[in-house]
């Protein structure tokens, strides 16, 4: 499986370019001189201690956070304060959150069809068919008429993935998708993500699941104090970390 995953095609086409990006919260310098290029089909895992800015980095990519310096280009669209560009990028980039953020007042099916109907202007029937297709893919088509509050955490996160996929995004961002889940539910979510990776989706995942990183990622990025400290292929990254900070981090999370 791991072999299979790393053999997946990465194209030369560029999906995301981040150039000298800086961000401050007030006077606090959260992200410092981030340079990152992501090719189409790449699966990138971003890890690092808490407060290192990894979530902030991927949230900058779909403009949930505003950056103050540098440029971010997603799929050829430059991220600026122009709302048209922001909306265009957001409809191309799917995102899964730590706390799922499903819409509790809508059924699972409505959660999945809302954005296609209103943003893409897809006819309702077609949107529902697409939604059922993706709900089947994440293996919960029978829950379609329920409300999010009636589902387990793992199921909710899979719905959240399906909801993003219904927009047919070209890039998926995952912000600690398994951190709020009970241990027995982590696997079902990771399996869904692995399946997605095998289909060639461009993915950026902030996660502490190092097994997932080894199996799926073709690049692991280590961040600390707002900087990208080290990035490498998973085998090299885990077996032969270069920076002392990476070594310390890995010994802490893999040591027990």
């Amino acid at each position, binding site marked *: 499986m791991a072999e299979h995953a790393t053999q997946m095609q990465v194209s030369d086409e560029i999906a995301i370019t981040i150039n000298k990006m800086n961000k401050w919260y007030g006077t606090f310098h959260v992200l410092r001189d981030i340079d990152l290029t992501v090719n189409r089909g790449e699966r990138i895992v971003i890890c690092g201690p808490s407060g290192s800015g990894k979530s902030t980095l991927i949230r900058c990519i*779909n*403009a*949930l956070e505003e950056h103050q310096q540098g440029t971010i280009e997603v799929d050829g669209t430059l991220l600026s304060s122009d*709302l048209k560009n922001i*909306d265009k990028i*957001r*409809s191309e*980039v*799917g*995102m899964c*959150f730590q*706390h799922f*953020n*499903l*819409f*509790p*007042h809508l059924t699972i099916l409505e959660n999945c069809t*809302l*954005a296609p109907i*209103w*943003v893409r202007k897809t006819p309702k029937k077609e949107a529902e068919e697409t939604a059922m297709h993706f709900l089947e893919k994440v293996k919960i088509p029978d829950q379609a008429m329920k*409300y999010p*509050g*009636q589902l387990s955490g793992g199921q909710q996160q899979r719905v959240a993935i399906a*909801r*993003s996929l219904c*927009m047919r995004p070209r890039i998926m961002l995952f912000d600690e998708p398994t951190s709020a889940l009970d241990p027995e539910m982590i696997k079902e979510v990771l399996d869904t993500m692995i399946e997605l990776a095998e289909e060639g989706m461009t993915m950026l995942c902030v996660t502490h699941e190092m097994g997932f990183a080894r199996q799926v990622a073709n690049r692991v990025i280590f961040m600390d104090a707002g900087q990208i400290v080290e990035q490498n292929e998973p085998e090299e990254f885990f077996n032969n970390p270069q920076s002392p900070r990476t070594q310390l981090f890995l010994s802490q999370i893999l040591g027990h």
Partner: protein
Amino acid sequence: MSDTHAHSVAFVRTQDVPMAPPPSNAAGPAKWVKDNLFATPLNGLLTLVALYFIYAILSSALPWILGGIWNAPSLAACRDILDGASAACFAVLSERWNQLLFGFQYPDDQYWRPGLAFILLFIAAAPVLFFDLPRKLLAFTAIYPFVAYYLLWGGTIFVPILALVGVAGGFMVYQRLVAGSFAAGFFGGIAAAFVIWIIGGWLIPDDASANAMLPAVPSRYMGGFMLNMMLGVTCVSLSVPIGIALALGRQSSMPLIKWICVIFIEFIRGVPLITLLFVANVMLAYFFPPGSGVDLFLRVVIMITMFSAAYIAEVIRGGLAALPKGQYEAADSLGLDYPQAMRLIILPQALKISIPGIVNVAVGLFKDTTLVSVISMFDLVGMIRGPILASTEWNGVYWELFGFAALLFFIVCYGISQYSQWLERRLATDHR
């Protein structure tokens, strides 16, 4: 296996033993009484004291109510009939019934008009309040304000038709322009409506009301409980959308809009309603073009609406603040724009949280409509305090009249409160 069993055992019961009834002290009314009324000695004592109070109140109130006189021309006649007995004189209600409901100036032969408007109100409100009803009924809700205006005020039919055409024209312009930007659609729509109204205003001849099918009734003739209902329904239905707009404006990232909303809300909340009503009565005329003669009813509606809109805005702001930030982020990350995110994700949830607060304001507002009696409008309380109690026949009938007023308001307010509880249950999707 069951076969061998049946043959080898002497007796096998084929039916369930019926369940034995529980002992009388473990279920039924006796247990309920023991648990709830006489659980401890103190509990028992309090039960007895409470029973005594209920008896004391009912034993004096019930004969007063049940022995009431319903038919007499005046209080003096009432007392003659009672002949020293203590009982209510409800005759004032039957004798002044129309005045209590419609005021003392509304033409007698036109009472069917407010009556019909009242009945149609239920049909118009139904699809808004009960959203399981077919959506097509909303078409009637949309034209109801114009129908109700025509029924209540009468006069030339061109006025409500012109108003309707203006609103429809404004809405069409809004729909045409809103694709470009919301602001363009919004202000374009308002401008278009005003253009239609002004041009139409020139076209309607001044004496159009002279031979109207429904004779014109001026606003100062409106009164009684009808006036409370008119003010309550108009102001509640206007102040909810304005309150939503103010709450969203207060959260806006555009400083100008934000500060206009903050100043408006804080100013209105800092001023007593009665002051605003005096302003409506006396001062507001200065703000309108000279000679425009804006109706007192309209001025009062503006003031009460502003007042309750400010309160509703704060209630809704609480609902907005209670939503997790993740909901905004999820809506953003899916590419929904601001109006879509608000309309589809944020407001449905925030309004659901705000229902108890909004209903609280609505009930308070409905009761506050009686304050117009201090600026010499003859609403239900104004009618009682003025024309009825001041008349020689009924001077001194306080309990019956104010009890009746309390009952009418209670029925409406209790209805609103029951509706809101039903709505909360109906919208519950969190399955806690």
